[in-house]
């Protein structure tokens, strides 16, 4: 019972903050609401006993990526988003398409939950041990490939940001 109340409270905060990200006119507030959204998502992960994923959610998304976003927004000092809104190209229809596509999938999944299901045993899938074992035995090659991909990304960004030496 307590868990259900907590879940609905967190879910409400998550949905409201996600809506705020889209509808807020101030880019800094948008970014802050996105941080709040990530944080509540992490709390929901904790409730689902996926502690490891929850902690990584806070460290990577809320702690590192969003700080960089805020950093850039503050440095560029974006004013109102009017200038961005006016440009008409393929981006807007594409964004609508992807957004509504994901929404439809999620709503479909939610309705699928209404069907009667066999009771699920409480899973241990979220602990560091289980995830580590899965990543380094079953999924070892994909993990190595991801490592290569990230290294390429790092080297590429360093090449792009490098000061031209005349």
């Amino acid at each position, binding site marked *: 019972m307590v868990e259900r109340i907590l879940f609905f409270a967190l879910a409400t905060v998550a949905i409201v903050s996600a809506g705020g990200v889209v509808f807020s006119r101030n880019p*800094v*507030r948008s970014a*802050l609401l996105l*941080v709040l959204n990530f*944080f509540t998502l*992490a709390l929901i992960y904790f409730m689902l006993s996926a*502690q*490891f994923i929850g*902690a*990584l959610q*806070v*460290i990577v998304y*809320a*702690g*590192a990526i969003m*700080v*960089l976003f*805020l*950093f850039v927004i*503050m*440095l560029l000092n974006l004013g109102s988003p009017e200038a961005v809104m006016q440009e008409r190209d393929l981006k807007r229809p594409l964004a609508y398409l992807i957004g509504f596509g994901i929404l439809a999938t999620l709503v479909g999944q939610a309705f699928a939950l209404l069907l009667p299901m066999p009771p699920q045993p409480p899973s241990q899938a979220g*602990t*560091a041990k289980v995830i580590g074992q899965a990543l380094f035995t079953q999924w070892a090659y994909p993990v190595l490939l991801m490592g290569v991909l990230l290294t390429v990304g790092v080297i590429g960004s360093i090449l792009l940001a490098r*000061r031209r030496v*005349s």
Partner: protein
Amino acid sequence: MTLADFGWAIARIAIMLGFLLSVLPVVIWLERRALAWFQNRIGPNRLGPFGLLQPMADAVKLFFKEEIVPANADRFIWALAPALSLFPALVAAATIPWGPNRLLTPVADVDIGVLYFLAMSSLAAYGVLLAGWSSNNKYSLLGGLRSSAQVISYELGMGLALATAVLAAGSFRMTTIVEMQAQPLWGVAPFLHNWLIFTPWGLIGGALFFVCMLAETNRAPFDLPEAESELVAGYQTEYSSMKFAAFFMGEYIAILAICGVMTTCFLGGYLAPINWSPIQALGEGGGMWGVLATLTGALMPPLWFIGKLFGLFFSFLWIRATLLRLRYDQLMNLGWRFLIPVGLVNLALLTVYVVAGWVPALIGYAVAIAVYFLVFGVRRPERRTVALLSEAQPYRPKEAQSG
């Protein structure tokens, strides 16, 4: 979860927050007196014995100060920032065990203790960043930007340093990390405890963590975000009254929490350096010695923990009174070009120990040190004479310099 569990949980939270908040005036008093002592001054010595009541007087003064809101500030975020800097500091210590009694400590003995601390300390950047931005003041903004860049850079080194403790213990759980250090020293000296700092990987990891922890808490010599000579007071320039006090409290509580993590992961947590348990076992028979053994068994571990905590805090002060502030490029070079590579090599050699035992690991360390000195040589401190005034300004790119 039964009612009793709930009650114990509330008790654990109350004890931790009570300790953090009640020790705060002592810590501030210690900082002012110790700095005064280092600088051959007297420091606050009038109010109460040795000036101990001075922080109380300061708190009362801050309460009654007028609060001035900058005219063009973003008011909501401006008011939110001190809270955002206090919150992560208050909750970050929740997984640190300060004694052997599992009912009273830690607040939550979770599977991801170390990651939880990293997550909470990574949230601490927001308070400073938003305070700097919302004040609408160039000094505040520069302070906030410097701070967030610094925290992001040093978080990586801190994670690598903590990873040595995690890998050595085989668990993210902080109580397991402490229990791992309760084994005999190097496996041969049963009367001593095997603190992680006594092993080569622990020594290097602990040193890295110590440097990163100074940078994470924005303390000297990494206190660029609040460099008085350049940025007035950095991100907190526009704050007054209790909002200023909230930043101050957040900073000191974050220092205590991070010292607690260093104590837990590298300095043996609540363990004494000497293993008293055989002597304790002698007293189990009962009578006066039995009472004494129970008392010391229950009281000494927290006292050891607090002693180590204050020792680390004193080393913060010692460094603040001794070292000069780094330049910004020096700070970034130290973080990215020294701490992170050293942390990675240390972690790799620790895996050698875990897989192959201590002989190959020690050979690996010797090889790594030899390679370092062969490649880089014995580096002498850089000496430069500043010929032109323009060269003395570190923030301009090379092309922009004249002459």
